[in-house]
Structures are given as C-alpha cells and as structure tokens.
C-alpha cells in the first residue's frame, strides 16, 4: 500500500527573487520585441466593468466618454491578466503550494481570523487601488515595470507615490506592530 501523503506537504523553497525578477525582465523584453506589447493590468478592469455593463445597460456604455476612448473588449492585456491567474494556479498546483485561504497570516495576527473583515478590506482597497491606477495612467505593471524600463518620468513619480500611499496605509493599519 502506498504511504498516504501528508495532508499539508512541506512547501517548496521559493525561487530567488533576483532571478525571478530578471527572468520577468527578459519575458517583458521578449513581449516587446515579438508582439510590441508592454505589460499592464489596470485597463483590463475598466474593460471588464464595461463588458459587464454591456449586459445590463448597453446604451449607457456607448454614451460613456471613457468607453468611447477605450472600448470594452477582450484584448491582449485582458488575456495577460487571465494568464497570470492561470499561471499561478498551475504553478501552485504543481509545487503543492496551492491553499484555499480567506485570511492571510499577517492580517490574522493583527486583526484576528475574521474573513468578513478581510474581505471588506480587500474589496474596499481594490476599489481605491483601481481608481488611483486609472487616474495615474497605470499600476505597478504599467508604470512600475513597463514605464520605468523606458525611463518614463511619469512612471518614476507614480512609483514614488504608490509607495508613499502604501507606506502610509501600512503604518495606519500596523502601527507599532
């Protein structure tokens, strides 16, 4: 009889972040050379919102100024974001680090094991994050990676603001911890 697998097998060691980051840099370069696409993620969420709204209020979508500029459709970036989800799923299944979890460890240490509270924070933070990213014209992918490798001034200022806001919120939430 085969030995039963432990219920939670030991997680594999992570990849070195310098190596992973450098490989991500090469992947970004390959994408730019081969298909002329820079990484980005935040516009996909406006397109997803527009696609959902099309189901209920198509008239409203065609009249909206933003959707006229950027029509809701599934494009390269949409599939890129879907691919990140799929790649993470496949990778975590293969190396057995896939876990269904509702509350991250460090959040639980600070705010207790309350999935509702964590869900509310993730949801509210998500609303703010995407509004900010679209205002700024990009997120840590579009500005942080794609913009900064081109040495875009806007991207370096955006990155500084991302971290300034993030450090302030982390301080507020975890003050003295």
């Amino acid at each position, binding site marked *: 009889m085969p030995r039963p697998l432990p219920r939670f097998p030991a997680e594999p060691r*992570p990849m070195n*972040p*310098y190596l992973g*980051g450098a490989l*991500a840099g090469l*992947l970004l*370069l390959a994408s*730019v*050379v081969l298909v*002329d696409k820079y*990484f980005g993620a935040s516009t*996909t969420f*406006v397109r997803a*919102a527009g696609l959902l709204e099309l189901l209920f209020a198509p008239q409203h979508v065609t009249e909206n100024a*933003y959707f006229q500029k950027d029509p809701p459709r599934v*494009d390269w970036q949409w*599939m890129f974001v*879907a*691919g*990140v*989800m*799929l*790649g*993470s*799923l496949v*990778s*975590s299944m293969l190396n057995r680090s*896939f876990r269904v979890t509702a509350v991250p460890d*460090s959040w639980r240490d600070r705010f207790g094991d309350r999935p509702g509270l964590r869900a*509310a924070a993730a949801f509210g*933070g*998500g*609303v*703010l*994050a*995407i*509004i*900010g990213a679209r*205002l700024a*014209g990009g997120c*840590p992918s579009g500005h*942080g*990676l794609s913009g900064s*490798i*081109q*040495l*875009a001034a*806007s991207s*370096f*200022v*955006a990155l500084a*603001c991302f971290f300034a*806001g*993030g*450090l*302030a919120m*982390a301080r*507020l*939430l*975890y003050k003295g911890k």
Partner: protein
Amino acid sequence: MDLLWGLITGVLFGVLLQRCRVLRYDLQLGALRLKDMTIVKFMLSTVVVGAVGLHLLAALGVVAFSVKSFNVGGVIVGGLIFGLGWGLCGYCPGTAAGALGEGRLDGLWALAGMVLGAGLFAELYPLLQRTILAWGDLGKLTLGEALGTGPWPVIAALALGAILLFRYFERKGL
C-alpha cells in the same frame, strides 16, 4: 493571435510571480511595513534587466517605445490613492488575479472591488477630466530627456542604486 500571446506571456509571468511568492499579501505588506523586501528585489531586478535590454534593443532598432504621458495631477493624486488602496487591499491589479490563482479568496474580493472601482472611474471620468486631469501635462517625458543626459547615465545610476539597495537588504536580512 494577440490574445494567445497575451495568455502565454501572462501564464509565464504568473509562474514567476508564484514561484517567488510575490502574490502573497504577507510579502506585499512586508515591503510596505519595511520588514521583507522580496517584492522590491523582484521588481527592481525586472526594471534593471528590462531597462538595459530595452535600450540595447532600441539601439538595434528592433523595439518601439510607448512612454506614458506625464499628467501631473493624475500621476500624483492617482498614485497616492493607488498606494492607499494597495496598502489596504494588499494586492495590485496583476497580483490580485495571481493571488486568486493560488487559492487566496481575498484576491477574489480584491478583483471584485477593482471591477466596481473601474466602473466608478468610467462614470467619474468626465468630472476628473475637468478637474485633477486638467492640472497640466508634461507629455511623454523620459528621465534621459528631462536631465538632458540621454538614457545611459540614467540606466547606470538606476543599476548602481539597485545594487547598493540589494546589498543593504541582504546585510539587514530584509
């Protein structure tokens, strides 16, 4: 064809993010709490390799640039709002999708919030265009142009800064 390339590139990027544990709330907040710099190491490594490679490829004439315009109000106000949301949520748009992929249900809540927020943004867009986005635009400016040095001194400074920062992180065990 574009769609297939998008999916393939996304899958490979997702695998790298997952293997380096960048998709975890604990590590995203670890950076913002200045306790664990894994995500900064990952991101800066991508930027240095990408910046050197992109400018070499540009010298060969095989890549096109796509610099984002510097809308002053949008970048500064939007960047700060993004940061506050990121600190609360613990994921950025790309990592929220990846976090759900490795089973993190708060990633799903983050994605839902981002879709709602994106819908709100589209509604607010005309108002934002008249206000924050109307504060001035410096155009598609790069640091090489702004400093008048061309790209290479900026890239050298970026690489040197990254290496010094990495050495500091490793010395402090961050």
